[in-house]
């Protein structure tokens, strides 16, 4: 081996050893002098509740939210003392949380990027923007309003047409969204999309004739009350079934049919007019509730949920959840419980 070859060999070996050793230097350093060894944070009290912010606010401030024994309120503006509620410029330049001890009525649009707490009601004309609002009474915002973080009205929350409620809206009473409103996550005993028909307007469906899933073509009994179909499945109209159903294709439930159980389909579910599912409705694709149909259990889609006029999900004494990346609710639909549109939720309807 010539001297040049030998040199090259030594350089090669040294270079290789260096590259091999280099990653071990920070590894050694991290081992001997740990800089990141804490366990991953797993919040013990993370309850995933939509009204989390409102509850935290209330808990922090105690009772009605106005008594503040445990927090420093020196940076808060007591509204009636500090500025005129009609002074738009004052609202726009607030740099501390606002606490109002009386009902607030705003007649001109304002933009407030600080949390607002109203002891009674909070009403604002259309076109206003708020980061977060907490009210012990009603929150009523006019058309084209925006809530960018969260709003909670103990008695109710009403957004005018084409308003936007980003992140969380909650109430212990009713949430009313007019046509054109966009939403993400809402929770209330009743969430009304657009104009909801009065109870007397809802037709009472005729009792369907008792039937068995096993009578349907391609049906396979999976034990207990569970049935499965490979491919698409059409459930006839005006029947009454007891049992749960898994469909690998598209599931179509006929008008006025009632299913006492859960349904799951992979490629789409369509509930016919006034069809009723007493359990959950789960789908990897679109779920379409035609007018008057209803479900009592959770409704979960991995793409879209479409709610037509008169659809009801959950009931007053049995709130449930609707969740999907996109939820489009026609004026006249109503949900009880949580509505969570991960990407976008819209209320639509004819003018």
């Amino acid at each position, binding site marked *: 081996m010539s001297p040049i070859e030998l040199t090259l060999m030594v350089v090669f070996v040294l270079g290789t050893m260096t590259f091999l050793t280099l990653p071990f230097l920070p590894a050694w350093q991290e081992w001997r002098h740990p800089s990141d060894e804490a366990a991953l944070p797993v919040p013990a009290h993370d309850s995933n509740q939509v009204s989390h912010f409102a509850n935290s606010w209330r808990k922090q401030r105690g009772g009605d939210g106005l008594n503040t024994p445990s927090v420093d309120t020196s940076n808060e503006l007591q509204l009636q003392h500090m500025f005129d509620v009609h002074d738009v410029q004052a609202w726009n330049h607030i740099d501390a949380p606002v606490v109002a001890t009386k009902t607030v009525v705003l007649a001109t649009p304002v933009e407030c990027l600080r949390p607002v707490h109203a002891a009674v009601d909070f009403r604002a004309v259309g076109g206003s923007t708020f980061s977060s609002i907490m009210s012990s009474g009603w929150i009523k915002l006019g058309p084209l309003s925006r809530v960018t973080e969260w709003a909670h009205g103990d008695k109710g929350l009403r957004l005018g047409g084409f308003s936007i409620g980003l992140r969380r809206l909650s109430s212990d009473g009713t949430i009313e969204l007019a046509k054109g409103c966009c939403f993400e996550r809402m929770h209330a005993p009743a969430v009304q999309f657009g104009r909801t028909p009065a109870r007397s307007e809802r037709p009472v469906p005729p009792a369907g004739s008792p039937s068995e899933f096993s009578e349907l073509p391609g049906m396979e009994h999976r034990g207990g009350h*569970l049935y499965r179909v490979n491919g698409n499945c059409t459930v006839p109209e005006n029947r009454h079934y007891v049992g749960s159903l898994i469909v690998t294709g598209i599931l179509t439930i006929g008008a006025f049919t009632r299913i006492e159980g859960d349904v799951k389909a992979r490629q789409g579910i369509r509930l016919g007019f006034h069809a009723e599912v007493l359990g*959950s409705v789960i789908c990897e694709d679109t779920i379409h509730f035609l007018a008057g149909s209803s479900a009592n259990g959770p409704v979960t889609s*991995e793409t879209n949920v479409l709610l037509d006029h008169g659809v009801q999900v959950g009931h007053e004494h049995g709130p449930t*959840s609707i969740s999907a990346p996109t939820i489009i609710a026609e004026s006249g639909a109503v949900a009880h419980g949580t509505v969570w549109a991960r990407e976008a939720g819209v209320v639509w309807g004819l003018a």
Partner: protein
Amino acid sequence: MLVHRNPVHRIRLTLAATFAFAALLADNVAHATTLAFPVLAPVFSKLETSLHDRPVVTDLAFLLGLIVLVMMAYAARHIAFTLNRLFGKQRHPYLDIDTADWPMLTVFIAAHNEEKVIAGCLTALLNSDYPENRLKIVPVNDRSQDRTQSIIDGFAQRFPDRIHPFHRLTGKPGKAAALKDALPLAEGDIALIFDADYIPGKGLLRQLAAPFFDPEVGAVMGRVVPVNGGSNLLTRLLDLERSAGYQVDQQARMNLRLVPQYGGTVGGIRRSAVDAVGGWNDDALAEDTDITFRLLIHGWKTVYSNRSECFEEVPEEWSVRIRQVRRWAKGHNQVLARHWRGLWGSRFLSAREKVDGFMLLTIFAVPPLLLLGWGLALTLYYLNASSLVALVLPVFAVMAYGTLGNFATFYEIVMAVLLDGNRRRVRLLPINLLCFFVSLFAITWASVELVTDRLLQRELVWHKTLRYRSASPT
């Protein structure tokens, strides 16, 4: 059949298949053929001569080539999973269900000499936000000889409506057997199972119960997070491994609709589904894997919920870790022997579910295979280092595996750690080679033991993992 027995034809067949596959990929058959054969003609000629002279070497080279192909398949899987976690659509379909008419739940806590940890687990479950009237907590005290029974009884006295202890004084040892005996105490169709060292968060039970609203779901698995990750080097390395296993591997399988695995704790089962597939098996060392595959084969889905996190303890001593890995390896390979045929024959599964399921099933058979590959490579080197037979196939395969395979698992760990937001701990990655080697030999040892146990008809013994937390007050 003669074609397949002749090593020359076998090599040719392999090479031809490789190029045919490349051609298909390139969608240009003619081009690939013209490219391949002139180049390979002299190689074939030399190979033929060499093969006739040294058939044993050829067979060994062929075997090594196959092993490397298997390794590359696993490497490709790791890379695909990692890329999916980085760029794919993430599935958490049931996480958004936070209001519902919640089903009756029975939570079983497997406990064998758990005086150090059982109180923490029970307290955490009592603080859960799951509706009290729908929750039954059953601590399963399996022949404990420490204060576990008295601690449990203390809780039961204070919360008689909520905690219903099951003290097991005799019977077959092991978690699977204890749970099998306790399952009849369950109320409702859903049973969640925790080990005694787990500390469930307030909302965890709801998150784990939510997927069961889907009638197709037979089992649910949450994410396990080491609570003692910072104790020593071993726990820090295991913390990295756990991150990769859950944050990337399990979630990617969920995203891709493959086969997420039920892990036996921080999870639950639908009792009617388990009954429908033959009930709880108490003769399985890895009853969780056994349940996963029986459910899968019969058309039930297992759901992984990455955001349903729960703390656990990881081993702080290498001896404990090795024993744990050996138990997993034996149990997993036992399930492999039982269910691989059923998996391929299942009419409920898609092709990709079968492939992923099989790769998951054989995951603990890979380390012995890898060791065999290393042994073969060395053997070939010493038998004939200069032979084309010994070089062509293995060298290219080993190069490909070296480039892709060796990095795949580490790539997975890196991305998991980054997704978790803990960037500095990733510096320990090179030292993770230590864990890799320890697991490699421990699993191989366990696989050999499994075979000898079977041959000698020895019963498989379940070993409990040691706890490290200091005893908590009752």
